[in-house]
């Protein structure tokens, strides 16, 4: 287990390094120059050079990247912004705020949104999928299967707008989407996020229903399930002790990846409901050519995916004794 963790964390570090370098290169490949934008309409070569220096983008690309990396571990001094403690992600070109603070400010919104939705779609998706598998071929299965097919072909922004119109504006059943920190007011935190949660989890629920059903159906045809029945175990025991075990692996794998992606920012959901999470932050950063913010968000998003990948592999080994971690 220790060796597994060390190896995977080293691997993750390499991946993050490559991703951040890639963002650097791609950013400078873009035609727009952030210094020129910041410099304004009347821009002499002298002011442009000064802006460049202030934004810390005057050095050649490898040097810049190296400085940025160094900042992560030992902190960094800017001529214009002053000192920035490690881990330093730099300052936003746009707001002149430290990137780390901005991200830490936005992260709870994204975490609340994605974890809440994940709980809903995991419970309902897997539950419905298992029910459909038990009732294979019966009306319930057919209803669940067709409903999930319809739901999984919907788009978040359509459903989001429609749900807000119907449930909030017309029927006044639920509150308009908003974010209140949990520590401030748990009740408001919940009611403000309920509509986004339901909308975001709708499509995931549909996908998990279909995946769980097909995994269970396949698992039920395995030879060891037949053996368990031949031993005299009841259908119910066989279903929950044997078939479920076999179906769980792929579901957990996909779940880990989905969660990792969501934690990097649910861009469409956030913008549909105007929630200020990481997704919105990254959209703004791209629009504004805000390299430090973009790098920070990409790092967090990639980090979330990589971390959940490691967790998935570890959990997989717990479920399936044939998988050995090394």
């Amino acid at each position: 287990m220790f060796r597994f963790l060390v190896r995977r964390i080293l691997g993750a570090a390499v991946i993050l390094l490559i991703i951040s370098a890639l963002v650097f290169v791609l950013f400078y490949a873009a035609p727009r120059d952030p210094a020129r934008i910041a410099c304004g309409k009347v821009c002499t070569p002298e002011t442009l050079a000064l802006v460049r220096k202030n934004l810390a983008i005057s050095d050649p690309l490898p040097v810049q990247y190296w400085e940025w990396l160094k900042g992560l571990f030992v902190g960094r001094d800017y001529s214009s912004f002053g000192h920035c403690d490690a881990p330093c992600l730099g300052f936003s070109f746009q707001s002149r705020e430290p990137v780390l603070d901005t991200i830490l400010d936005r992260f709870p919104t994204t975490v609340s949104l994605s974890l809440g939705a994940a709980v809903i779609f995991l419970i309902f998706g897997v539950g419905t999928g298992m029910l459909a598998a038990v009732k294979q071929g019966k009306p319930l299965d057919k209803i669940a299967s067709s409903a999930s097919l319809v739901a999984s072909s919907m788009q978040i922004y359509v459903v989001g707008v429609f749900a807000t119109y119907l449930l909030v504006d017309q029927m006044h059943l639920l509150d308009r989407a908003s974010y209140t920190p949990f520590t401030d007011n748990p009740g408001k935190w919940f009611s403000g996020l309920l509509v986004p949660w339901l909308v975001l989890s709708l499509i995931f629920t549909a996908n998990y229903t279909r995946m769980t059903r097909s995994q269970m159906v396949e698992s039920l045809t395995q030879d060891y399930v037949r053996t368990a029945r031949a031993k005299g175990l009841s259908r119910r025991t066989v279903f929950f002790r044997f078939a479920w075990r076999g179906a769980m692996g792929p579901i957990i794998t996909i779940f880990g990846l989905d969660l990792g992606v969501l934690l990097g920012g649910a861009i469409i959901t956030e913008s549909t409901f105007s929630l200020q999470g990481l997704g919105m932050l990254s959209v703004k950063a791209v629009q504004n050519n805000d390299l430090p913010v973009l790098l920070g968000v990409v790092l967090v998003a990639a980090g979330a995916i990589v971390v959940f990948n490691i967790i998935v592999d570890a959990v997989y080994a717990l479920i399936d004794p044939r998988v050995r971690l090394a």
Partner: protein
Amino acid sequence: MSSTTPLLDVSGLTKHFPIKGGFPIKRTVGAVQAVDGLDFQVAEGESLGLVGESGCGKSTTGRLITRLLEPTGGRITYRGQDITHAGRKQLAPIRSEIQMIFQDPYASLNPRQTVGKIISGPMEINGINPPGGHEKRVRELLETVGLNPEHYNRFPHEFSGGQRQRIGVARALALEPKLIVADEPVSALDVSIQAQVVNLLQQVQKDLGIAFVFIAHDLAIVRHFSQRVAVMYLGKIVEIADRDDLYNNPRHPYTRALLSAVPEATVDEEPRERIRLTGDVPSPINPPSGCRFRTRCWKATEKCATEAPPLVEAAGNKPGHLTACHYPETTDTVPAPRLSKDGLTKNPEAAA
């Protein structure tokens, strides 16, 4: 071609599959010794049987001869030409002379191609234009293997298992090969169909004078088909001899045990000799020292653990009958003890 040069000459043939592992950087930490120093020859038009249990390396051997795998060591000579490490270009002319038939007749045929296309494929690739064109030749081949030439345009799924294997045979014959390596060609088929395919292969071998390396685990079928038979155990040949010598006078204890374990569809008044080996075949990753069979052998001594027995003509063997054993069996050897249950508990290491 002089009669002294065999069609295929294999010496010291070795294939080790590396195992990657280690920390923190992966490296080769061991090897599956799938095939470890094989010596044998196949004469023109001869059929050599290769038998052994799972993991003995017989299939790997087949893939090495056809050069689907790159040998780790040793030499493969085909008609006097060294093909051990021959590249694609050098192999091209030889590939058409050495063909292979596979076990799973369905998986080895492209489901999206018609039978005509499957069989003519090798001819097109090798730029061979038979008189009368490809189609005529394919129809002839279909007839040779006992299929209706009218089935030229059908797809593999329209045929039964036995018929599919016939298609595989027709494809192998398309280039008029000198040597066919048949890897368990009948073991996926029903008993009544097996006999059809065995008869077909035998007829092909006799009529067209093609040499065969016939790989199988079924000793009775190998005996029926092969003039000479090699018995393999854990990557090594333990015994090789003419068919009658091997089956009537097995000198290696493993050969003898293997023969005695074959269930026969006869009801004998007096029970046959029964030798029951203990446990399973050990892992080829870490094979036993010395003689690899010693952990399951009832005659094993200290010498067997330290010294690997060479494959030689043991005293009392007919010419060409080679045995790799320090203590070869003789016809009057007292039947080996029946080891099945007691042996297991006494010797847990061998069974584990």
